[in-house]
């Protein structure tokens, strides 16, 4: 019962503090939808008609990421601004709540709940709920945009956009339904895992440094296509279903499970003997 109350407190209080950031996430998603719509219209301006972009096309554009970077004298590394902005903003949104809660009312709440593990579990569940809410907001914004712009609400990927607008350099002409699930779920799963990892790091280092570590992981992922950097799984255009040397779904699932389990267990274990000092 006490755990339920603790979770209720975290969800209520955490969401209350993070409400504005959810609105900002919606604004980001809206801006990316408009960007895709304009780019689509611009790219096919000389065609008889502008092709329609489906619900999943918009999501693919938002979460897509960048194609593999191959260092050369002519091509410099281009930062995946949209992709980074979205992931980093969600990470930033969950960065301070657990930490600040310990120097606020949360300290007295913790003492009353009598369990450090319950506190950590509750914060982890809040973290998961908040990231889920961020993605729900993105999906709803895209859904609303498609409704307003009379774009089809469907999960059919338009193959020509993949190379024309997402610049994926894909050798494929058609894409499997598995790619739809990758677009829908993998950015979310990696976000969940990285947000939990960041929360665990905050026990060891200052929140801003923890955020910095996540930024480095994401940037390194964008720079290097390798299965050991988790950000690659959050870029559907680096999937094996888009490019031949892409990352595999099974590896991605393993990576997500490993990161979530390691973050939760390490956090739980360390928080049991963590000194609560409020040395802000």
């Amino acid at each position, binding site marked *: 019962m*006490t755990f339920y109350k603790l979770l209720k407190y975290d969800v209520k*209080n955490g969401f209350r503090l993070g409400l504005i950031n959810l609105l900002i996430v919606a604004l980001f998603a809206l801006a990316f939808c408009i960007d895709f719509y304009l780019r689509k219209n611009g790219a096919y301006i000389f065609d008889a008609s502008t092709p329609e972009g489906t619900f999943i096309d918009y999501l693919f554009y938002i979460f897509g990421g960048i194609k593999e970077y191959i260092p050369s004298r002519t091509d410099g590394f281009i930062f995946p601004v949209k992709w980074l902005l979205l992931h980093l903003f969600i990470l930033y949104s969950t960065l301070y709540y657990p930490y600040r809660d310990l120097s*606020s009312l949360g300290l*007295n*709440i913790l003492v009353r709940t*009598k369990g450090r593990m319950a506190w950590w579990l509750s914060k982890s569940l809040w973290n998961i709920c908040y990231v889920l809410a961020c993605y729900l907001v993105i999906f709803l914004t895209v859904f609303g945009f498609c409704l307003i712009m009379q774009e089809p609400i469907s999960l059919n990927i338009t193959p020509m956009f993949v190379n024309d607008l997402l610049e994926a350099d894909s050798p494929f002409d058609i894409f499997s339904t598995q790619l739809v699930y990758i677009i829908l779920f993998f950015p979310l799963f990696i976000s969940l895992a990285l947000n939990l990892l960041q929360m665990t790091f905050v026990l060891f280092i200052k929140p801003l440094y923890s955020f910095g570590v996540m930024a480095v992981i994401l940037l390194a992922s964008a720079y290097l296509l390798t299965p050991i950097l988790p950000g690659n799984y959050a870029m559907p255009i680096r999937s094996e279903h888009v490019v031949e040397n892409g990352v595999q779904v099974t590896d991605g699932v393993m990576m997500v499970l490993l990161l979530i389990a390691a973050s939760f267990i390490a956090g739980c274990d360390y928080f049991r003997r963590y*000194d609560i000092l409020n040395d802000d």
Partner: protein
Amino acid sequence: MTTIYMDGVYKKLKGLTVINNISMTLTSGQVTGFRGVNGSGKTMLMRLIAGLILPTKGTIKIDEKVLGKEITFPESIGILLENPAFLDSYSGFDNLKMLASIRNKIGDDQINHTLEAVGLDHESSRKKYKKYSLGMKQRLGIAGSIMEQPDIVILDEPTNSLDTDGVERVKQIVQQEKERGANVIIACHDTDILDQLADKIYYLENGAMVQSTRRVPQA
């Protein structure tokens, strides 16, 4: 009623010894005072008793249960640490209500009664916390620590930011808590207040206990 035993307690933080071989027994129905300059270890000692930090060496027992092993925190404790912190967007009353909802031991009447005891009337307790003055924040912090009538009451610098009325109320509250049978632990810079309130005073220096005095009961 609760007894706190500390046996050879050390605490090291970042290589620095902040609590150095402290042994003491704190009993119910008594007010124990900690005195010492800033950085002498008073707050650390209170955090150790509250279970917020764990000893590097030594044992703290609350009623025979080892803190950090058999229990995570004392069963019944109310704490006011240096700077009380609540949620800005809630009123003082709502903050306390949220705290009380965890144990579900007291209702609105008890919360209101405690708020009045610390000098926060109905109107001021309904204001948002962010509009509170430092003194009001301190009063709310004290209310939060005593409202559920815990067995252990820890008050770190309870008279900070308080006016004369506030200080008098703190004295009354500490006295009432003692009479109720609580184990009251208080750290205070004001030597007069500590002399008036505490049954026993421990002097701390560089994390070590250097002296203790017991108040002589007045005839």
